[in-house]
């Protein structure tokens, strides 16, 4: 189980490596007159020094990717799951940051070359607006196409509400509606983003803008249908762990494939449409981009800004809201290993049982179940746990806690270490509990105490 879980974790995270490295390496090819975040004239594309910087960048990226993947295999030597996760997240952090450092280095080298060759046309504080493309009416995907998957996501909650068991379906549907709503909202935002201006050619601006918006819009639409399908399949196969893993895995792969396909398709179109660009007048906004990665323009009131190449979006760091969001994103990346540390504390702190005069308390971490002996209907000591699926809570090799459902369909609350038998099954007026101390002797002692109290009544 542990190795399977490790493999699932590993493959869900390692997919980031090829994505980040391929995406960034792709930026060394000219698109919209931009190479590695630096705007260059057409003649620079065949310049020896430029080609050398690009080739060196791609070589470094390839070698770094190989080293990163090879080093990650060493993590499988670690016996503990939480330690594995902590170091995997730390590794992931390095793998995310490292290619961007290489990118920034190449960007600086290319910017220096640009200054040296006198290729700059930029003027600080200048904003270009193509009035013709702004005046064009844009056809967007109708709201109905986003409303359908949102309604589909609500189906489990509605049906289970009628049946009377609605909590899990409500959580599922709520998540589905939230994701579909997010896609719907993003779709609206992309039509308010600035046009893709490359040069003084309104037709080109209009086509590039339309391509970006259309592709992004389609991605959001298909993404919301995939999310609705995930909600439905999770609801239909709620009892099966295997089906859960397969459907979430398929959904994750589907979303990644969709995003990559759309991104690469957009990049290909941008590359093709601007293949001959940069010979005459062209737009240069390099002064507003730090390392070609971070947008900083105090004169732009927009909070969000299109990435210079591809479909992505970034924030304007000159705005306070941009600083806050940028800071939160950075904090999330830096704090990722903390999740592993939290898991370590969960894995290594034992579940405990305490008995007081009329109270039995099962504790693990932040979870605490207080059972009043007066409420106990029956108590049973078990050497084996029944088969159960997690509904909401923690399911680790040495800790099970939270809400579970047994194979017989019994809803219960659990707080125990499944490797430390025996376990106590307690039925109270509020529901069924499976609890245990990691020390079997303490569990037996607690059971005797509860059993005597019940029999005395």
């Amino acid at each position, binding site marked *: 189980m542990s190795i399977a879980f490790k493999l699932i974790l590993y493959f869900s995270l390692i997919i980031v490596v090829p994505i980040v490295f391929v995406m960034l390496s792709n930026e060394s090819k000219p698109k919209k007159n931009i190479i590695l975040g630096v705007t260059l004239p057409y003649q620079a594309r065949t310049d020896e020094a430029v080609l050398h910087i690009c080739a060196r960048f791609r070589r470094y990226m390839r070698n770094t990717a190989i080293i990163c993947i090879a080093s990650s295999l060493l993590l499988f030597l670690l016996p503990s799951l939480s330690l594995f996760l902590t170091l995997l997240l730390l590794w992931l952090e390095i793998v995310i940051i490292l290619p961007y450092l290489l990118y920034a280095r190449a960007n600086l080298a290319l910017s220096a070359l640009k200054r040296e060759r006198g290729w700059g046309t930029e003027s600080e504080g200048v*904003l*270009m*607006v193509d009035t*013709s493309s*702004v*005046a064009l009416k844009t056809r967007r995907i109708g709201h109905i196409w986003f409303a359908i998957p949102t309604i589909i996501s609500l189906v489990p909650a509605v049906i289970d509400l009628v049946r009377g068991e609605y909590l899990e379906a409500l959580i599922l549907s709520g998540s589905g509606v939230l994701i579909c709503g997010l896609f719907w909202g993003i779709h609206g935002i992309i039509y308010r983003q600035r046009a893709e201006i490359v040069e003084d050619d309104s037709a080109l601006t209009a086509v590039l803008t339309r391509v970006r918006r259309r592709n992004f819009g389609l991605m959001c639409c298909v993404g919301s249908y995939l999310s609705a399908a995930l909600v439905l399949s999770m609801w239909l196969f709620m009892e099966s762990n295997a089906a859960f893993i397969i459907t979430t895995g398929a959904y994750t792969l589907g979303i990644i494939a969709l995003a990559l396909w759309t991104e690469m398709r957009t990049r290909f179109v941008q590359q093709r449409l601007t293949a001959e660009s940069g010979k005459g007048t062209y737009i240069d906004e390099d002064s507003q981009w730090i390392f070609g990665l971070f947008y900083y323009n105090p004169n732009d*009131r927009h909070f969000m800004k299109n990435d210079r190449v591809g479909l992505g979006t970034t924030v304007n760091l000159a705005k306070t809201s941009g600083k806050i969001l940028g800071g939160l994103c950075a904090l999330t990346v830096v704090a990722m290993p903390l999740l592993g540390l939290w898991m370590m504390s969960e894995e290594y702190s034992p579940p405990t049982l305490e008995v007081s005069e009329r109270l039995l308390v099962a504790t693990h971490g932040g979870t605490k179940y207080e059972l009043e002996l007066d409420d106990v209907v029956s108590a049973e000591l078990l050497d084996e746990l029944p088969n159960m699926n997690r509904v909401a809570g923690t399911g680790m090799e040495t800790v099970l806690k939270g809400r579970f459902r047994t194979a017989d369909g019994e809803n219960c609350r659990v707080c125990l270490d499944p490797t430390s038998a025996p376990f106590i099954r307690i039925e109270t007026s509020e529901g069924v509990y499976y609890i245990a101390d990691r020390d079997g002797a303490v569990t037996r002692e607690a059971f005797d105490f509860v059993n005597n109290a019940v029999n005395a009544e």
Partner: protein
Amino acid sequence: MLLRLDFSADVPIYMQIRNQVVVAIAEGKLTAGEQLPTIRALATEAGINMMTVSKAYQTLKTEGYIATDRRSGAVVTGDVKRVLSENALEYLRVIVAEAKLSGMSKTDLLKLCEDCFEASPVATILN
């Protein structure tokens, strides 16, 4: 047409928009009947206040370069007044004063004006 808004310049943004639209009409980049973005769309695209765009359009409308319509937004008109605007006259006075102070002769100034006039091809709309 490509609007170039310089936020560090002394000229107000609304005046930059007005000036560039006038130059674009004169150079034939904007022709009669061509649609300009709506106030909201241009303000959103440029990330500037709607009042700024509104002021620029109002000035252009008063001077007869554009006509505004609630349904179709702003449209370039062929009905341009054959007199210089007060702003342009004011600029001209400043340029003449600077030329005088720099010791430029009237002939040289007129030659310079002629060169500028020739360099900026006036569209059929103004002929």
